[in-house]
């Protein structure tokens, strides 16, 4: 447990000291959302219709942007060898790194999302289901992203490969996340969608570390 928390603390410390990382992700999120009104026109009707989709897609892309720092620096500086050489299973190391990634990426995105939703004129009644949906869906994004980041270690351009691998895997959270907002706009209740999002994250907690650790072992060989 001490080792697990120690790894989370180190990654948080690195994320905060190199504050640019968190700022970069948030900056990308804000700018990507702001681009849409310029691209599709400022009519409030149109924006309101696509607001949830814009916020969710921008959050996904912002999360993808930060995935390469999950393992790439540890792989390059030899830290991954030392992480692998521990009585702790590599799966738990992946879980700790994904948790730290969520705390420095997913959580800030969730916190900023209400402001951006207002910017694109989302109906305030649907705001809770957007924020709760992101809160439940972003852990799955960090965990599944860990698989892609581990798989692309050693590739010539790991960032691009990670993006290609991970974007199709982000479809389920995107579908249920925007579905939750649509449902609450139609006054149908977003509960089912939110439960499915939670299920994705809960399933990813044991499964994603298994897959990512297998990929890391391959990269270390």
């Amino acid at each position: 447990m001490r080792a697990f928390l120690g790894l989370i603390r180190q990654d948080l410390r690195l994320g905060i000291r190199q504050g640019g990382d968190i700022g970069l992700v948030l900056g990308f999120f804000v700018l990507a959302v702001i681009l849409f009104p310029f691209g599709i026109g400022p009519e409030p009707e149109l924006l309101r219709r696509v607001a949830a989709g814009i916020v969710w897609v921008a959050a996904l892309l912002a999360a993808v942007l930060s995935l390469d720092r999950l393992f790439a620096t540890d792989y390059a500086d030899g830290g991954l060898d030392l992480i692998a050489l521990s009585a702790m299973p590599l799966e738990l190391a992946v879980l700790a790194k994904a948790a730290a990634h969520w705390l420095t990426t997913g959580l800030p995105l969730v916190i900023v999302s209400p402001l951006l939703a207002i910017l694109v004129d989302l109906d305030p009644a649907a705001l809770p289901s957007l924020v709760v949906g992101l809160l439940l869906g972003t852990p799955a994004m960090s965990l599944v992203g860990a698989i892609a980041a581990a798989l692309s270690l050693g590739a010539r351009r790991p960032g691009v490969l990670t993006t290609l691998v991970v974007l199709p895997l982000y479809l389920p959270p995107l579908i249920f996340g925007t579905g939750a907002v649509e449902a609450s706009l139609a006054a149908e209740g977003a509960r089912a969608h939110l439960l499915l999002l939670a299920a994705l994250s809960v399933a990813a907690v044991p499964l994603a570390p298994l897959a990512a650790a297998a990929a890391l072992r391959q990269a270390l060989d």
Partner: protein
Amino acid sequence: MPPFPETIELIGENLACRRGERLVFAGIDCRIGTGDALVLIGPNGSGKSSLLRLLATLLAPAAGRLLWGGTPVEDDPAGYRATIHYVGHLDGVKPALSPREMLGFWAAWRGVSHPAVDAALTAFGIEPIADCPCRWLSAGQRRRLALARLIAAPAPVWLLDEPGAALDDDGEARLVAAIASHRAAGGRVAVATHQPLALPGATTLALDRFAAPPDAIAI
């Protein structure tokens, strides 16, 4: 440093290593008992680093097996990994953290509750820079920090890959002293090195004797 009194041997039997299609070496037997030092020598590419990574379980052997205390390492890989320290070419040092934070983290990662961080900093003479960010450190200072891990979190087996690289005379003397007191406490050490280190009573393993013929195919 706590002594390691158990007379457990690390034994490699008939080890072979394959990198891609090439068989790097084959048929290596080695035995590192309590207080022993094994020095790996050989030209570049003869497999010194590969053998150390193999002993560290970071590489799987193409043939042969590793025994720790008579039991194959693959039966209890986590237990075995907790007994070894590996210092490779790359030092795993994060530019944004300080040496004290790095040592604290590595000790915590190995599950040590009261890490000897100050003793480790002193042993390698880096206490004056203990709280500076590591991006200010020179190559030699980073190497000292990597070696200080050995002291901060004790482990009975040290696997050192060119530990003297980038070290000055003082650093090398501190390294030799650390290895000597580790062995005196019953620790075991395997070192790959080009520069002669003062390791009395060490066994030397010349890897070029085990080089596989160029067309050899791993078993």
